[in-house]
């Protein structure tokens, strides 16, 4: 499954998982890591930083190129995945387990505006053409 049904997505290729404690976990999609190639470096936003929806907040560098990470929803960063610093390749191996950061959303309505799996899959398929 390259686009799990239980997640929400952005047009900029982040996946968003709603956690039971009300936070959301963010990573990049299978399609995004496939387009990037081998990931070698990740720069996550600092814990405590307040982000606006769509704001540039991190960088993923692959052997080939650099890609910006955008905040899928507004909110405060409550955790960042430090394990990725030493093992950035997990983003390629398990893109839906290799989370980047966790946000405490400022506005729950924004989550509902995100794409569902079917809508995101259409975008990914179109890019592959």
């Amino acid at each position, binding site marked *: 499954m390259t686009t799990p049904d239980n997640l929400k997505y952005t047009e900029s290729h982040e996946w968003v998982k709603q956690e039971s404690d009300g936070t959301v976990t963010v990573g990049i999609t299978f399609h995004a890591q496939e387009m990037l*190639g*081998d990931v*070698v470096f990740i720069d996550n936003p600092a814990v405590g930083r307040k982000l606006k929806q769509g704001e540039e907040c991190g*960088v993923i*560098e692959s*052997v080939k190129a*650099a890609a910006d990470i955008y905040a899928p929803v507004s909110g405060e960063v409550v955790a960042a995945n430090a394990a990725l*610093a030493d093992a950035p*390749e997990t983003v*390629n191996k398990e893109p839906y387990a290799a989370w980047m950061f966790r946000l405490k959303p400022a506005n729950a309505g924004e989550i509902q505006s995100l794409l569902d799996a079917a809508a995101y899959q259409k975008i990914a398929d179109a890019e592959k053409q």
Partner: protein
Amino acid sequence: MNQASLKITPLNAAHRALGARMVDFAGWDMPLHYGSQVEEHHSVRRAAGMFDVSHMLAVDLRGPDARPFLRRLLANDVARLTKPGKALYSCMLNNEGGVLDDLIAYFMAEDWFRLVVNAGTAERDAGWIDAQRRAVAPRLEQAARRDLAMIAVQGPRARQITAGVLPQAAGALGSLAHFQAAECGDLFVARTGYTGEDGCEIMLPAGRAAMVWESLLGAGVAPAGLGARDTLRLEAGMNLYGQDMNETVSPLESGLAWTVVLQTDRDFIGKEALAARPVERQLTGFVLTDRGVMRSHQPVRAGDGRGEITSGGFGPTLNRSIALGRVPQAVRPGDDIEVEVRGKWLRAKAVKPPFVRNGKVLV
């Protein structure tokens, strides 16, 4: 350019059968990687990998005037080639002393030299060589060998495995010195490459290429794409034409002074311009100290001096970002410099390339 108009090599179907991610490289439909370019990189450093380099062009020059012609055409001096089979790396300059291309010249016989030039510059090179030939050596025969395919097999086990697959070249593969080539029937076998590892480059009739590729695959050689080729050559401190040098820059400001024979009574194209032009910059290496990845065209700050990254990336063998860049002459190995990576000035150290040679990290 749309895909239909891209040129293809005799191994195109083989790449697609392996599931390669294909890209447009200088108008050629070429494999970028076959899954993981980092794994392909490691295969070459640790065992053996192979690259389809059929997009490069072999140009044969035949006739008694070949040597004097090349002494004028190239900045390196083919007078250094005394033993048949010996090869020489050289720049071909324009009249202004800029680099038209970098190439390898093979001396096969007094009346036969072979040049291997880059894909992106092949047509321009062939035209330039032809114009020079018509002017000073009209009887020299020039042939663009698009009938040949080229496979580069690179890595510590490359020659041994290739010898097992190509019995007709086994003797040559075992005995060739570095930067030397031999003809083995319809194969042209050279102990050359672009990775900083031992290995060989095989030129062969296009019709045989797919079978040889399959045999090498079967013998355990990992297919490797342009992505790995770029990280391997960068770690090896080897220039990429169009990125680290081009027709507007001097080889003396491109880390290639060792390939230019200026102290000579020989006249070569670009010599006068090189002699007249002050050398103010140098091409040197950088290792990033901070976390991040350097990329080409990023600005460099070295004391009061300014420069630019010409090739930057991630070196899988070093597990950190490395680069080549053009900076003022005053920068010395060990100096702390800064590189502007995505809006932030990150710390890096100047080092003398290569970064890696024969599997060993040197910086």
